[in-house]
Structure formats: structure tokens, C-alpha cells
């Protein structure tokens, strides 16, 4: 299946690393097609957290004793791994949050409150996840900033025809690097360049990007990036905000408490150095350690190989579903596999997505149905909900086949 002799993934070996595939789930062989929602976790990640709890569990940064030192080292070691994984030049630019949503809220609340006045414009897109819309609505309600939206054009791509107008006078452009509904890979570097030329900073929501493509910050050219650990083989409870040092240093803190201070008196406080300034309270220590192990795991596979695997499986998916179901099925998003990730929102006849998901579940095929936290995009697409199948490193052609076959059942039940 690999092209030009480039190595792709040995999915059988990968699956063997994921205990959830060991046995039946609810009596059925599991076809997990909701990795955009959250990924499954390899043994290596679960083991790293278990090892942390039984060998090194203590609170970090504040203890002189062995366990506390071990805890701090494992946590800071993970920070360095994550920094390398995304091509950051400094580990201190990696801020751990509880999820990507907190990271995006941090940008809006801390950078936004310090830098945006009534009338200032922030540019988003209509394909954003609620996590990159609602924090800006909240700031808009508080501050009277103006939100502008890049629209959707041909074949599931963004419509950049009026980009210059939208950027005129904008202070920030914040957008997704890959749509969690359409799979669209957006032209990050191109938008970043235009935004910078117009004097705006650039933030990307990389929740669906970092887990699936090699990420080199230098090539993306952005100022902020947010993503979640749980979508990239890591545990729940940890996310990442990356931003350039100068920006982070100039920003006021977000949450206040232990660990983020240099000094506290009854009259006020001063903040600690990066990254601690933005990490108030006990961090998700074990989860950060787990994310470090996830990054090691993905590095072991090679992100180039991960991407190649997903492009190949995307081609297979698009081809197979069309061959079997023709015009009964509509897949949203770009038709060209190289321009998208393996996330497929699709409609099947007029079966409601919720019913579709239920019927597929009966076959062990797990797909999500709903608005995927992108209600403005649903409205844009003229639907209330879609069914969504999404691929990751452990999926193979057989998973796609099982989905495609199971659709017939929905047809029997509901088509009329």
C-alpha cells in the first residue's frame, strides 16, 4: 500500500499496542471511528502514568525530597518532549492546560483582555469548533470587540477571496489548522503571512493537526497554538498552549494561585517565570507524563508515516464508500486526500445521523452523530447534524469495509 517505497504504518503492530482492541467491546469486535472525538491509548502511555503513580508520585517544584524531584523531572522531561514534537525552540514556551479549550480561553482572556479594545477586530472562520468561537463571543460581550468570519468556499475549503478586507485593521486571526467536521487542512502559512502583513497576530487551533501531521512551528509561522493531549494517544485532563516567548512574557496571568507567583503579600503579587506563570495550582502531573509518553509513541511511529497512512486510508475510504453506495452517500469536505485529514462527515440517504450511528453501533462500528461542536458550520452546510467517521493510526481498510457494509442495514430500516 505504501507509495514510492516510503514506510507507512504496520497497523497490526500498532493495534497490538492498544489494549482496547484486545477483546470484544459490548460483545462485538470494535471498529473505532471516533478518534477526532478522542483517541484510544496505547499501553505505553497507560504504563507511563502507572509507573509515575507507583514510583514517583509527589507534588512538583516545591519539595527537596527524592519523590518530589522525580515528579518534577518526569513532568519537565515531558515538556521538553512536547516542545521538540512541535518544533518549539524553547520548552518554556509550552504551557500545560487542562485541554485545548482552556488554552484557547487563555488566549482570549489573558492576551485578549490586555490587547483588545472596543471596536478591535478578531478574525475567525465559520468552520471553527465552539472552543474557538465562544471565548471570543464572551470577550465581545465584555469588550465590544468585533468578530469577523472567513467563509467557506469550494470543495470544503475556506473562501479567502476577501481575506484582505477581513484582515484590514484586525488584531488577531484565530482559526483551525484542520476542521474537525470537514477534514479540511487550512492554508495556515498563507493566512499567517497575510495576517502578519496586516499587523495581526495569528493563533491556530491545532487539535486535529498535531495528532495527525508532522508539526513544525517554524513552517507554520503562527504566534499561538492550542491542542489537546487526549486526541493524540495521551490521557484526558491535559492540553497545551504554545506561544512565542515575548508574547507570553507580555501577557498578564490567567489563573492565580500556587506555582505561578514570585511573591505574594496581603497587598498584591508578582508572577513567576515562564512556563509557571500560566500554570496555577497543582498541574495535571501524571497526565503531562502520559502526554510525554504519547509523544514518544508517535515519534516512534514517525509522524511522516502517520500522515502517509492517513492519506492512503482516506483515499481508500472515499473510493470504497462511493463504489458501494454511489449517490446514496454524500461526504463533506475536500475530495482530494492530500488536502484533508481522515475526518468524514457524511450523509446517507435521508437516515438521520443519530439513527445511523445507532445502527452502526449494532455492528461495533463507532461513529459520532451530532453537530460536532460546530453549530455555525452545520448551519452553513444546511444540516442539523451529521454522522462523522474519523481515522487514526490503528485503523485499517477492514475498519472502512465494516462501516461501508453496515450502512446497508440502515438502508433496510429507514429508507422510504
Amino acid at each position, binding site marked *: 500500500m505504501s507509495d514510492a517505497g516510503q514506510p507507512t504504518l504496520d497497523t497490526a503492530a500498532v493495534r497490538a499496542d492498544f489494549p482496547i482492541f484486545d477483546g470484544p467491546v459490548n460483545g462485538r469486535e470494535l471498529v473505532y471511528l471516533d478518534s477526532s472525538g478522542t483517541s484510544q491509548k496505547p499501553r505505553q502511555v497507560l504504563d507511563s502514568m502507572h509507573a509515575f503513580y507507583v514510583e514517583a508520585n509527589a507534588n512538583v517544584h516545591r519539595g527537596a525530597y527524592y519523590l518530589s524531584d522525580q515528579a518534577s523531572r518526569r513532568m519537565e522531561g515531558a515538556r521538553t518532549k512536547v516542545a521538540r514534537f512541535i518544533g518549539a525552540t524553547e520548552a518554556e514556551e509550552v504551557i500545560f492546560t487542562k485541554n485545548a479549550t482552556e488554552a484557547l480561553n487563555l488566549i482570549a482572556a489573558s492576551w485578549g483582555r490586555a490587547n483588545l479594545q472596543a471596536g478591535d477586530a478578531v478574525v475567525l472562520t465559520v468552520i471553527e469548533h465552539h472552543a474557538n468561537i465562544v471565548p471570543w463571543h464572551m470577550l465581545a460581550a465584555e469588550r465590544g470587540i468585533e468578530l469577523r468570519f472567513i467563509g467557506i468556499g469550494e470543495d470544503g475549503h475556506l473562501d479567502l477571496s476577501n481575506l484582505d478586507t477581513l484582515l484590514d485593521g484586525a488584531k488577531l486571526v484565530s482559526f483551525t489548522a484542520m476542521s474537525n467536521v470537514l477534514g479540511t487542512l487550512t492554508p495556515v502559512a498563507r493566512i499567517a503571512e497575510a495576517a502578519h502583513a496586516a499587523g495581526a497576530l495569528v493563533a491556530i487551533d491545532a487539535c486535529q493537526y498535531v495528532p495527525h501531521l508532522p508539526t513544525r512551528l517554524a513552517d507554520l509561522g503562527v504566534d499561538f497554538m492550542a491542542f489537546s493531549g487526549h486526541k493524540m494517544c495521551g490521557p484526558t485532563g491535559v492540553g497545551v498552549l504554545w506561544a512565542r516567548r515575548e508574547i507570553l512574557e507580555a501577557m498578564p496571568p490567567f489563573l492565580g494561585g500556587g506555582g505561578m507567583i514570585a511573591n505574594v503579600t496581603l497587598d498584591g503579587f508578582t508572577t513567576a517565570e515562564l512556563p509557571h506563570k500560566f500554570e496555577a495550582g497543582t498541574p495535571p502531573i501524571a497526565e503531562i507524563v502520559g502526554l510525554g509518553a504519547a509523544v514518544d509513541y508517535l515519534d516512534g511511529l514517525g509522524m511522516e508515516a502517520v500522515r502517509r497512512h492517513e492519506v492512503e486510508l482516506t483515499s481508500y475510504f472515499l473510493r470504497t464508500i462511493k463504489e458501494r453506495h454511489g449517490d446514496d452517500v454524500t461526504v463533506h469536505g475536500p475530495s482530494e486526500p492530500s488536502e484533508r485529514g481522515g475526518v468524514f462527515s457524511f450523509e446517507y440517504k435521508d437516515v438521520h445521523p*443519530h439513527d445511523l450511528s*445507532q*445502527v452502526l453501533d*449494532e455492528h461495533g462500528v463507532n461513529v459520532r452523530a*451530532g453537530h460536532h461542536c460546530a453549530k455555525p458550520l452545520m448551519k452553513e452546510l444546511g444540516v442539523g*447534524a451529521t454522522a462523522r467517521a474519523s481515522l487514526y493510526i490503528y485503523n485499517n481498510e477492514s475498519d472502512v469495509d465494516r462501516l461501508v457494509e453496515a450502512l446497508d442495514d440502515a438502508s433496510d430500516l429507514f429508507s422510504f
Partner: protein
Amino acid sequence: MAGLEDLYKEIVIDHYRSPRNRGELETPPAQHAEGLNPLCGDEVHVYVQVEDEVITEVAIGGQGCSISQASASMMSAAIKGKSLAEVRELSTAVKSMMSIHEQSLEDDDSGVLPEPPEVELGDLEALKGVVKYPVRIKCATLGWNTLAEALQS
């Protein structure tokens, strides 16, 4: 469709394919509410006209999955011409059929369930299978919750 017969009973599919009392009523005199299940996007609009404590007219709008739309359709057929007291009993019976009991945290888990009212459920009985699919319970009760709102409005 091995396994799903309990959920997608013939009569349920029939109400989904041919929804009863589809439409709108003029408000006022009718009362109206729109129910939304934010998790899956199901929508049910309920219009009811009440005269002398009796539901004389009912109309249903909205869009969503088979369970939410069929349940609303079945509800509309069941409540038309019924007194408000009868409708309240029916609603409690349907919810208790779906094992929704307003349980408080003080109850112990093994507690005996409250006895459901003795009511003739008719077609509504077909929704019994939803209990086995807990994520769908919200779909099945959306119509009834929206009706309660419409009656309060």
C-alpha cells in the same frame, strides 16, 4: 437488523415515516414551545390548544432522529382530546416506562421504584425498548418535556 427490533418497532418507524398532526397552530389561542436537545440537535415544536382543561388541538413541528420525531407524533395522537389531568398521568407513565424517576441523592440505590400510574399507553407502549438505549431516552422524552413547557407558557 438483529438487536435493534426493540428500538425500531414497526409502529415507531411508521410514526417517523408518517408523522401525525404535523403542522402549526395559531398562537394565541394555541400555546407553543420549542424543545432542543443540544447534544444531538433534535428539535420538537409543540402547539396545543386548551379549552376547559381539555387539549382540543395539537400540532407538531421540528426535525431530528426517528425516535424524537416518532415519539412526538405518538404523543400528539395520544393527547388529543384528553383532559390535562389525563395528559399528566400519561406523561408520568411514559417517563416511568423509560425508567426516569425523579430520584434524589438521598435514596439508596437498591430502593424500590415508585409504582407507575395505571394508564392505558396504547401505541406509546412501543417506545418501551428505548430503555435499553439510554442515550436515546432524551430523544424519546423531548416531545413530552416540550409539551410540559408549552402548557406552562
